[in-house]
């Protein structure tokens, strides 16, 4: 996975969640992903879109013992989680 993985995830989220007027490079890796402070403007309904997009794109399922709430805190936590679950590609 590239050094720009967080930016790649930002592009994925922008595409799948139809986010407008936001550029991937403008999103800090530690900014809240979901909620009123999200620079993407995502809410909990968008969270479903993100977890499915991640599963379809990277083959990593968010759920069960891995709390979606923790994984979806920021681009950084999401990227770390995918790296952890895809060790061969990191």
């Amino acid at each position, binding site marked *: 996975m590239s050094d720009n993985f967080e930016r790649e995830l930002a592009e994925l989220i922008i595409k799948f969640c*139809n986010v407008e007027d936001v550029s991937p490079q403008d999103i800090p890796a530690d900014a809240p992903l979901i*909620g*009123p402070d999200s620079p993407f403007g995502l809410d*909990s*309904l*968008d*969270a*479903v*879109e993100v*977890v*499915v997009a991640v*599963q379809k794109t990277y083959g990593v*399922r*968010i*759920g*069960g*013992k*891995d*709390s*979606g*709430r*923790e994984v979806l805190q920021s681009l950084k936590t999401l990227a770390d989680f995918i790296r952890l679950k895809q060790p061969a590609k990191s």
Partner: protein
Amino acid sequence: MKIDFTHRQFAHCESGVTANLLNHHGLPCSEALAFGIGGGLFFAYVPFIKINYLPLTTCRIAPGHIFKKATRRLGIEVKKQQFSNPATAEAELDRLLATGRPVGAQTGVFWLPFFPPAYRFHFNGHNLVVFGKEADDYLISDPIFEETVRCPAVDLRKARFAKGALAPKGKLYYIEKMPERFDLPQAIKAGIRDVCRTMLHVPLPLIGVRGIRLLARQLANWPGKLGEQQTLLRLGHIIRMQEEIGTGGGGFRFIYAAFLQEAAELLENDQLIGLSQRCTEVGDLWREFALIAARVCKGRVAISDSFDELAQLLRQCAAEEEILFKQLQAAIGKQ
């Protein structure tokens, strides 16, 4: 006073509290195992009971039952108390803490100040463990948080006496006595049999796979019958009960799949490995339903184009779960 209590973070509050309390009392237990032994998996759609003005839809058994059933199946003695007087309830909590017991408590999320404002909503079935008190702050292990938190006594009092549906009435529960030895395999099998029974054999059209089919039938008619606003509210409510509120996703099906995987090892039953995989696939199907429902709520797809597909997905969930639980029943029945 502060009890030496090991806090672990989990996806769901009650199974997390159960696992943490069992661990404290010497029984190593994962969240999935507590959920499975407690027979946590469920489905009910009860249109005539309203939560926040929306029909009751749940993917888990009622609050309190996971702890109750898991401890009973493991032969553990527990105590539960409810109160009419908040001062008495607080005094009893302090007394129990002074005896060195970590205490489970049912609370209303809205009144807990350590929750970020965006996550506070009126849900009175939230469970946590109180493990100490320093000055006017209680020390709390809330399984959905990474670290332990502090809560002013005045706020915990409000949370324990929140009004409305599922009002906790100061409910406290704790482990009184552990047995000398546990029959873990029997407890696991009892938990599995319980879930198979409720999902397949309860003679009510609201419960189990029949409840999923009822929801499919009714949901298909919502746009014409209820109008757009009410339809979207109901759809959003189902997504919340299925993918949020600590379900672990897929309406608790992913957590249950993790339980079946553990159960396969503990029962030395390889059939359960395949059934765990099947349960994960059912969770994915539920998540596909949530995805399309979320797109409808966000206006990304038209209502008119989506409700037949949503109803069909629910029918598919019901059909797959019917097969899954029949196979699970057969796999456990032989042991």
